[in-house]
């Protein structure tokens, strides 16, 4: 199996096959009300420099004080990654000068991070998953933002983000393709959202990745890697890996050697370019931060966090497949967002009854998801509650409405009748489907009688049947059961 995976991912160069090795350092902004070492707000937006404490501004004499919630979030994440929680960890200063780094150093964890080795299962396809190793997770401060486009001569600095807590999650170099890397980031993001330790919002910049890429001939030792910094969308991560792998392969095949360097991905050009060379690399002069005590965690603290963790994606997926008979594919889609999974379960189990899970899943994955996406809102805000979805499925199961009527109902629930009770809507608008054979036959006869030429044509052009179905549906105000109409038409028209 390993060789199958390996051979599937190889890139063809001019002189033979190449293997791509990818490792990712993901920076995830911690969900917390205040910053890692200061009490200033982490709220998004806000006027520039309005969420800045004296500590964040690095005023003379200011000192960091650790935010316990950020520590808890890191531990929860470590538990979700099945990783070793280090009972003792320390903070180090990473020293360099830049205007969006007020202290002239970033407080990070270099030697002793809070979380050690772990692993994460990544689904590449419903029946194909890989295990990606986690090297470590540590806490560090984010920097502020520099704006260079506000003036021709001056740069502006917004320190709102300065000091916000980040978790840096370092993977082992276990990925072998752009797709694997993309899937890894997607799964990691889902896990963080389940745990609630980060919202993983890449558009807001709350999740970004530094991508390490190297290439080698299959079977050789690991070679020099380049780091592509600050890639802020999953799509770009994939593109960057492919561009960089090809660059390195071409370089080596041309007789050159890959130099270890930091690069940036330019999406408009689809290529990476050098940011700085090894000579220009910063010497960060790491040393333990003397303003902070070592972080010491006891078992009680960790156990309490573990006890409160929600059901994580892998477990939920397995349970959905076992308890609801869902396919791996359907289960994977439903569990991608915790809110969707909860909505699904609430709808299936509403009223203490266990209804058709597949039916619920289909509506959820189909029309309701489409509506939510179109409106740019969460599943629960599309217009109906889990209870309403349960009613809808019940109404179909009871034969009160057809699937088509259900779609009409949804359209109402998404628009003018948001939050209404489906049963009430059916009564109020007379949406019960017509299944009575006699009524359907009369409607069919009426339409056929009104269109004798078309009725004749149907014998040679079976496609006309659809037109007739449409007309009958129209004449019954859409309430006739479409299947019954189609069957009756076929009999009457003799097709």
């Amino acid at each position: 199996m390993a060789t199958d995976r390996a051979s599937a991912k190889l890139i063809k160069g001019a002189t033979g096959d190449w293997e791509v090795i990818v490792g990712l350092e993901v920076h995830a902004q911690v969900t917390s009300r205040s910053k890692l070492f200061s009490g200033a707000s982490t709220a998004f937006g806000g006027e520039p420099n309005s969420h800045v404490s004296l500590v964040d501004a690095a005023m003379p004499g200011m000192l960091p004080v650790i935010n316990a919630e950020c520590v808890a979030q890191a531990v929860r994440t470590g538990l979700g990654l099945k990783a070793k929680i280090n009972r003792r960890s320390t903070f180090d200063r990473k020293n360099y000068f830049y205007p969006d780094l007020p202290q002239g150093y970033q407080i990070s964890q270099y030697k002793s991070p809070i979380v050690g080795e772990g692993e994460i299962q990544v689904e590449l396809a419903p029946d194909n998953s890989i295990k990606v190793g986690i090297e470590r997770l540590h806490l560090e401060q984010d920097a502020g933002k520099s704006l260079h486009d506000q003036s021709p001569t001056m740069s502006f600095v917004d320190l709102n983000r300065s000091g916000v807590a980040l978790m840096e999650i370092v993977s082992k170099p276990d990925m072998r393709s752009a797709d694997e890397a993309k899937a890894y980031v997607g799964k990691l993001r889902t896990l963080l959202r389940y745990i609630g330790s980060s919202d993983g919002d890449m558009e807001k910049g709350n999740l970004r990745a530094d991508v390490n890429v190297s290439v080698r001939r299959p079977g050789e030792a690991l070679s020099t890697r380049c780091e592509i910094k600050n890639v802020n969308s999953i799509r770009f991560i994939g593109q960057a890996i492919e561009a960089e792998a090809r660059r390195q392969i071409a370089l080596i095949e041309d007789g050159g050697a890959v130099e270890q360097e930091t690069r940036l991905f330019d999406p408009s050009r689809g290529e990476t370019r050098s940011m700085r060379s090894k000579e220009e690399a910063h010497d960060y002069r790491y040393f333990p931060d003397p303003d902070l005590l070592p972080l010491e965690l006891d078992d009680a603290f960790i156990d309490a966090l573990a006890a409160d963790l929600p059901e994580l994606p892998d477990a939920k997926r397995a349970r959905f497949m076992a308890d609801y008979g869902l396919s791996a594919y359907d289960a994977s889609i439903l569990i991608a967002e915790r809110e969707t999974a909860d909505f699904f379960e609430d709808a299936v189990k509403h009223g203490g009854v266990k209804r058709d899970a597949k039916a619920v899943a289909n509506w959820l994955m189909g029309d309701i998801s489409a509506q939510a996406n179109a409106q740019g809102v969460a599943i629960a805000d599309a217009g109906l509650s889990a209870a309403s979805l349960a009613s809808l499925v019940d109404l179909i199961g009871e034969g009160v409405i057809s699937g088509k009527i259900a779609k009409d109902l949804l359209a109402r629930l998404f628009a003018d009748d948001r939050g209404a009770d489906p049963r009430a809507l059916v009564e109020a608008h007379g949406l019960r489907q017509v299944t009575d054979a006699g009524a359907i036959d009369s409607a069919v006869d009426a339409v056929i009688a009104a269109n004798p030429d078309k009725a004749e044509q149907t014998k040679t052009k079976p496609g006309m049947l659809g037109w007739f179905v449409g007309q009958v549906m129209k004449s019954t105000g859409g309430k006739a059961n479409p299947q019954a109409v189609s069957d009756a038409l076929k009999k009457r028209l003799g097709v």
Partner: protein
Amino acid sequence: MTDLTSLTLAEARDRLKSRAISSVEIASAHLEAIERARGLNAFVAVTADKALQMAEASDARLARREAGPLEGLPIGVKDLYATEGVHTQACSHILDGFKPPYESTVTANLWRDGAVMLGKLNMDEFAMGSSNETSYYGPVASPWLPPNWSRDRARAALSSDKRGLLTPGGSSGGSASAVAARLCLAATASDTGGSIRQPAAFTGIVGIKPTYGRCSRYGMVAFASSLDQAGPLARTVRDAAIMLRSMAGPDLKDSTCSPASVPDYEAAVGRSVKGMKIGVPKEYRLEGMSSEIEALWARGAEWLRAAGASMVDVSLPTTPYALPAYYIVAPAEASSNLARYDGVRYGLREPGADITELYEKTRATGFGTEVRRRLMIGTYVLSAGYYDAYYVRAQKIRTLIKRDFERVFADGVDAILTPATPSAAFGISEKGSDNPVEMYLNDIFTVTVNMAGLPGLAAPAGLSSDGRPLGLQLIGRPFDEETLFALGEAIEQSAGRMTLPEPWWA
């Protein structure tokens, strides 16, 4: 009418409480003394209006019998402490015009207890120095006359470059000079390698650097985070105890500040020292040490014996490595702590064509020579390839120094007695210009205490043959400042109160 500026802090406190004097009176008397002593250059900012406002408020509280422990007492504050709305520059050009919108915890404690702020005191730039000669505002003159100088000669030097006048020591030179010249009843100071104890010894007053973590560092301009500690300078041991009690205490805004409550230090002053075991470390007896200092040390031991303590020889073998290790660790931490002074958010900004030029010009112009020297040393010892050889090694030596003291205390020693300085005060411009290390050697007896995080008290013990003050140092167990105050009082009683110089400067 008694000259109000010659009262001790304790005496003034009692008279204010009994309403024999008012705070406005005593504040005004000090403001006048400060005005007359401008030549000494002890103060870099005088807050006369604020002082009188605070004094009036104190008088009101005294009238209502709601007096705090320091009610109405005029105090000077080292320029290192953030004082809200008032000049706070650590005597550096790079903090030009900086008036913080916040207060340090130590000074907030003083105001909470009713003290009155006279102004900000001169110091070595960023607390880096042992003679107050690195200050952006120029050197401070000690109120002690150099041997054989006439008052006229001294006055003349005051108004020119001060060359030859005695330094008050450093970095808390302004604080020491002001206290010794009776320009304030006491002053806040700070000590990273000896900056409270050495100036105390040079000017014949009392200074204590408490245990690391005893006082909060919030709002103190940071020099070396793991070594800096706040402490008072005062004219008597009792006064220092009263000051420390107010300055010290838990602070959640400083993660390295101890949560332990503060004992009544004044109650320890006058406690018997009978039965105490005092260690005399042989490694502090330097080759070529002045016989006067040797004699002073022996005299101190005699006094404590007479008071009922017993002296015992002890050994602190890593003592010779403390100074070199200090001059690796302290600059290393400083190189990081001073990175924030970059011209971007506050203080001096020298514009440049791009950010790099802005940084280079601002920091080259804003920092003085000694600061730049230490930043370069600090950056070097932390840099790739040198970190293990210098910084890590120095921290290991630090652990050994600490263990030396732990072993001695575990053997039943209550405190250790040493000289405070290797010499008496020297003249301004006399040392350090050719060889900075010459200046660093001033700290040789004091840095061990900062490296081990222990409390150290300096008390005046006598005068040199040519009339310059000499001091002794007592080193104590962690958080056992009370023993130091008891022993310090015993020395003060034996040595007799130091007669401070009469004003020659006006």
